[in-house]
């Protein structure tokens, strides 16, 4: 019997092809949007984790309270011991020290007079230790535009844009005029070892990367650091695991009465990351919801039109002895097949389009003034979800649309259907 109905379904293109196309279009959009949002927001999270937040971050409570100012005078001290404790207590995680610094950057001419200067912000990371993964984590090697990575504590890499502004090339010297952790003036010369393009407009405007040992000397921060970032062993952010680690750490080390005691925050708790993480889930739900409702209405409508066209057939089937509930069930079964076929086609097309977008769209020109830590190339990402997420609205909408349209069979009296058959 099922085979008989399916034969009829696939031979009647108005009953099969059109609904399959409608479902496929909807599912294509769902899959594409899912991949795009996962890619863009996921990249943003990964980028933030690498550059700014880690999967967890340890700071002093006071530093955290004023984090927008990157206040190195509120940095943690005695961090060698803290790092040892962290490595012992969470041996699978990778812990790195970072110092955010800023100041006036001056580039001198051949006479030592100021040639150009401007405000710059930078990040001191461990570039020189043998076992450091920071170069890979920050993707510095492949982001280099000119020159080399720093090989000594007093070498620095500048963003290409900042180097152009300061009119310097690799090998030139620059002077960082800043303040030490204790408030004294700090004037330190660095050699520009290379230039870099971070791929994030915010960093490319005036970014610098230096080795942490050089910056420690420049800012008088021996055995001190602004931030300790922790990365989970899997390399992927896990909200639950990060929150658990932060909570156990804070229970043990953090004292709400002591503003210089360390506090650990998970990625979600930092900056606006909660929003981004929630946005991924919200967007998925919203997209699925919208397409579920929209497709249900479209399919309900086409089901009604198709149903009206098929009242004659229904009348005939009733006359031959088929029961109404049997007919209704057969319509639902048909819709399941339509839903599966449409979802399969839509998922394939969605994945195809998404795979084209995995190469990314360059939004550098649009992100010139962006203050968000986001990459200039936005890319889609195909995750496992993308292979099945389209089936949710695809199947539910088709079945729901048919179920609503099919109610007409019950509402119409048998004799009425029979009259329509004879009309």
């Amino acid at each position, binding site marked *: 019997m099922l085979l*008989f109905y399916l034969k009829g379904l696939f031979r009647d293109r108005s009953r099969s092809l059109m609904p399959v196309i409608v479902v496929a279009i909807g599912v294509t959009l769902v899959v594409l949007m899912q991949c795009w949002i996962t890619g863009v927001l996921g990249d943003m999270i990964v980028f933030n984790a690498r550059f700014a937040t880690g999967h967890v971050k340890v700071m002093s409570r006071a530093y955290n309270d004023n984090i927008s100012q990157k206040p190195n005078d509120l940095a943690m001290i005695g961090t060698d011991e803290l790092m040892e404790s962290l490595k012992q207590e969470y041996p699978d995680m990778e812990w790195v020290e970072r110092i955010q610094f800023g100041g006036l950057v001056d580039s001198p001419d051949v006479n030592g007079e100021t040639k150009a200067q401007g405000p710059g912000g930078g990040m001191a990371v461990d570039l020189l230790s043998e076992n450091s993964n920071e170069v890979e984590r920050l993707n510095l090697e492949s982001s280099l535009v000119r020159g080399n990575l720093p090989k000594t504590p007093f070498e620095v890499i500048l963003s290409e844009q900042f180097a152009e502004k300061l009119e310097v090339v690799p090998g030139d010297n620059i002077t960082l005029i800043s303040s030490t952790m204790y408030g004294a003036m700090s004037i330190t010369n660095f050699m520009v070892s290379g230039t870099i393009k971070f791929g994030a407009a915010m960093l490319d405007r005036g970014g610098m990367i230096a080795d942490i040992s050089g910056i420690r000397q420049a800012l008088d921060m021996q055995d001190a650091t602004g931030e300790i970032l922790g990365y989970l062993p899997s390399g992927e952010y896990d909200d639950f695991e990060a929150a658990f680690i932060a909570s156990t750490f804070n229970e043990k080390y953090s004292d709400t009465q002591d503003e210089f005691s360390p506090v650990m925050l998970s990625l979600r708790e930092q900056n606006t990351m909660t929003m981004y993480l929630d946005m991924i889930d919200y967007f998925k739900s919203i997209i699925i919801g919208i397409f579920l409702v929209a497709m249900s209405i479209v399919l309900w409508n086409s089901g009604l039109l198709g149903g009206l066209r098929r009242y004659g057939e229904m009348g*005939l089937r009733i*006359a*031959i002895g088929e*029961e109404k509930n049997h007919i209704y069930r057969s319509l639902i079964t048909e819709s399941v097949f339509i839903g599966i076929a449409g979802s399969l086609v839509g998922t394939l097309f969605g994945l195809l389009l998404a795979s084209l977008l995995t190469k990314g769209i360059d939004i550098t020109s649009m992100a010139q003034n962006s203050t968000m830590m986001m990459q200039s190339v936005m890319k889609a990402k195909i995750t496992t979800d993308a292979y099945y997420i389209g089936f949710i609205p695809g199947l539910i909408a088709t079945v729901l649309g048919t179920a609503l349209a099919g109610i007409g069979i019950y509402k119409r009296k*048998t004799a009425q259907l029979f009259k329509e*058959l*004879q009309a």
Partner: protein
Amino acid sequence: MHNKMKNGTIITIQNLIKRFPIGGGEFTALNGINLSFEKGEFSGIVGPSGSGKTTMLNIMGSLDTPTEGETEVLGTTSSEMTPRSAAFLRKKHIGFIFQTYNLMPVYTVFENVEFPLLLLKMPSSERRKAVLEALEWVGLTDKIKSRPPQLSGGESQRVAIARAMVKKPDLVLADEPTANLDAKNSHHILQTMEKLNKDLKTTFIFATHDDKVIKYLNRIISLEDGKVVSDESIKK
């Protein structure tokens, strides 16, 4: 079931009244009908449009129910009839033939005739045999793979007859079966039905006002304004 059939009566209609709501009032389509039909009859309900022929056929076919009075069709009374028992009655014992053939256009001739047997869950091999036999009765074994749009009007109605007859029902209800056919095809169709009536002892009841059909009938029941005005048996 079929108690009455032992005595040869397959349909009994007593004081049947059928009213339909129209606007704020009611229209009485059938008004006090008393009739009975014997097994093997080749009868017709004749009358002008609006006389109540189709309504009576629908009630006998368990597609509609009386407003008042009672019917007993093949042992099932209208007062006891549920949608399920009505569907079973149609599925197992009643065949319908329509003015407009009502073949399912996406299915082949074979599949259209096969459909009632699928509902009866008949095994595939028996089904095939029964379908081919039914198509042989109507002379269409060479068209089994054709689709309805490829058939002439006469061929389509012969497929409809095969579909009605394939399950060998006790009763066939035919509503204006020749209305869309020319004289030659009408006679061919009627001869086919007459032969099946004789060979299989199937009861045929027509609703018609076509003289060509009336000539073949052995009982003519005339309806006017929902009432039986004459009931005449014709000896042939």
